[in-house]
């Protein structure tokens, strides 16, 4: 369903980015990195975590995040999704439901409502971010969204509800949400992958499902943790000589130290890189230039937390320039 724009919108010029991908590929790092990059470019940026696991707080090195956004640094605000809080805000701001009803059965039995009316939870989640975009509270909203399987349900929920609910306030609400989600100048999905078999396969499947089941355009694919190419062909020939027993022995003699683990390590690096190259080639072939691909290097750093986020933001900056 997604429509191609003649003139591709620069990634950070969109207003709403949903960062997704297979579990474990570094969605949160990339979401935090994109937000940090945008903020350092002077954009007033909100980054929100959907699954309240606390990873985003770790990557920004701030205390636990709440539904109420907080300023993390200049131009950068962070929050985490709490559907119950979102429901309260929604009832108050959007539906203008009186206070009495809000503290009545609805609020007390939120869990029930969310389960009884399928899609409510998803709508509240996606709706909160759409609302921030509609109100122009930020230049950019970056969502650390759910993993592949769930994100389609979330992004498809407004459409599903729109079909189920023919009248009423909720119907009106989903209509404007769909307008924002379906406008590629405003909204885009960023799929994060790593150069491995399953993440690449899931990226392709996710691209197809997003196109078939939602109106959200894919803004970019980010390939995370790409290992550096070690050798050119001629260097590899040299390496292979040194990796033989005689070569290693000659070098060990000259250095007066064992170098076997070094060559085992380099061999491992070469093998991993080759495997990655194969999966990267498959990804490029499948994507066929239909969407921009950004590459982030494997970070051999002992740091985690905001230092990693900074490194990722810088690497993203280089890729986007």
């Amino acid at each position: 369903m997604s429509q191609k724009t003649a003139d591709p919108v620069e990634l950070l010029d969109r207003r709403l980015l949903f960062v997704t991908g297979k579990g474990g590929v570094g969605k949160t790092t990339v979401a935090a990195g994109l937000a940090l990059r945008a903020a350092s470019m002077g954009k007033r940026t909100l980054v929100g975590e959907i699954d309240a696991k606390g990873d985003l707080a770790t990557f920004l090195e701030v205390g636990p995040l709440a539904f109420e956004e907080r300023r993390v640094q200049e131009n950068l605000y962070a929050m985490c999704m709490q559907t119950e809080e979102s429901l309260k805000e929604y009832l108050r701001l959007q539906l203008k439901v009186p206070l009495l009803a809000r503290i009545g059965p609805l609020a007390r039995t939120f869990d029930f409502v969310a389960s009884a009316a399928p899609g409510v939870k998803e709508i509240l989640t996606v709706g909160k971010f759409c609302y921030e975009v509609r109100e122009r509270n930020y230049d950019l909203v970056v969502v650390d969204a759910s993993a592949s399987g769930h994100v389609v349900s979330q992004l498809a929920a407004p459409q599903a509800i729109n079909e189920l609910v023919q009248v009423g306030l909720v119907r009106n609400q989903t209509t404007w949400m769909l307008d924002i989600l379906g406008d590629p100048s405003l909204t885009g999905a960023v799929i994060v992958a790593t150069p491995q078999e399953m993440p690449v396969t899931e990226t392709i499947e996710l691209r197809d499902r997003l196109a078939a089941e939602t109106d959200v355009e894919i803004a970019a694919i980010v390939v995370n943790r790409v290992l550096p190419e070690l050798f050119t062909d001629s260097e590899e020939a040299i390496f292979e000589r040194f990796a033989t027993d005689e070569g290693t022995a000659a070098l060990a003699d000259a250095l007066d130290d064992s170098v076997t683990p070094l060559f085992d390590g380099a061999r491992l690096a070469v093998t991993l890189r080759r495997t990655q190259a194969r999966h990267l080639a498959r990804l490029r072939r499948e994507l066929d230039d239909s969407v921009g691909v950004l590459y982030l290097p494997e970070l051999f750093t002992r740091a985690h937390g905001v230092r990693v986020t900074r490194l990722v933001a810088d690497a993203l900056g280089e890729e986007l320039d």
Partner: protein
Amino acid sequence: MVATSRASGTTDTLEALAASREVLVTCGSGGVGKTTTAAAIAAMAAVHLGGKVLVVTVDPARRLATAMGIERFGNAETPIPPEAFAAVGVEPRGELSAAMLDTKASWDDLVARHAPDAATRDAILANPLYENISGRFVQSHDYIAMERLYDIHSSGRYDLIVVDTPPTRNAIDFLAAPERMADFFSSRLLRWLTAPYQSRVFTVASKPFMNVADRILGSQFLADIAEFFMLFQTMHDGFVERARAVQALLSERRTSFVVVSTLEAAPVAETTYFIDALADDQLHLGAIVLNKVLPAYLRSTNATHAARALTDRAEELAPGLGDVTEGLDAGPDDIARVLHEVADRFLDFQVVAKREAELRKDLADHADALATVPYLSDDIGDLGGLLEMGGHIWR
């Protein structure tokens, strides 16, 4: 803080665990190799322990199916043909089957089983909400996975069932799912919601709720919801009883949990959380499987010295090493560059390997068995690969 759950201490290998349990549930965060680990454990059990073994996965893992020598497997249990084992030179003592969790199909089965009559069943299956709950929305997967497990287990067809759980980020959701289902069907709100359709007189309690709900959702949608839950209520008793039975199976000693993780910060944090959650619910953590672990030689301090020395002296040594590259078009500069690269990459990977070792410390001592799978250079492509992986964790 991680609670220790070394309850029995009787099993300290995955082999012993698999031999003494009827159900193994693998869990962990996404991308750590959970599905593959489940399949590897099941394959090892079928080969070495014998009996009838089933692995239930949540992913439509086509590659895994191919790896196990079958075209594909669906909601039905599919036996792995003996030829697939023969192809990798193994003669299993038992039999291995695989099934996938198809959420929608499993829900349909469940409705068919509990509906009081064919008319109710068809009405439920045709309800627009039912389609959404069963197919589209997330939480229903958690419950149906456990429900399916119970169903297969109580059929008595298998000696061991290995279940791969859905990649829920909130990892314990599926553990609470049976209880939540039971609560859900007993809830007062369900009565409120269906009240106006069951009787002409609104109860005093439900009226304000209905007014608000009607404004928000519209009356047609409310009617759909009400119809759905009225139909579902006819299955209430069977359903609640069933949910309790599922819960009981999970807490019994014949069920153990296997937490799978890689040694990266986020999966380890999730694993720690999971260890606590299992302990809180008094569920048995049988083993932790650490996947994709870098080899130990990368942590060697001697090698660090060698790598640093090589970096410092590559230019100095290169001219004297011409013999090694004899016949290649390689000058001392080329040799020095290659040696630098070798030393630098070693130091790079050493950083990662040391980080892994630190994280490993956090997880040791929390399960009866801690097993490690080394970094295998490629994804597993056949039954031999599964058994190779299994070989690393079995004893």
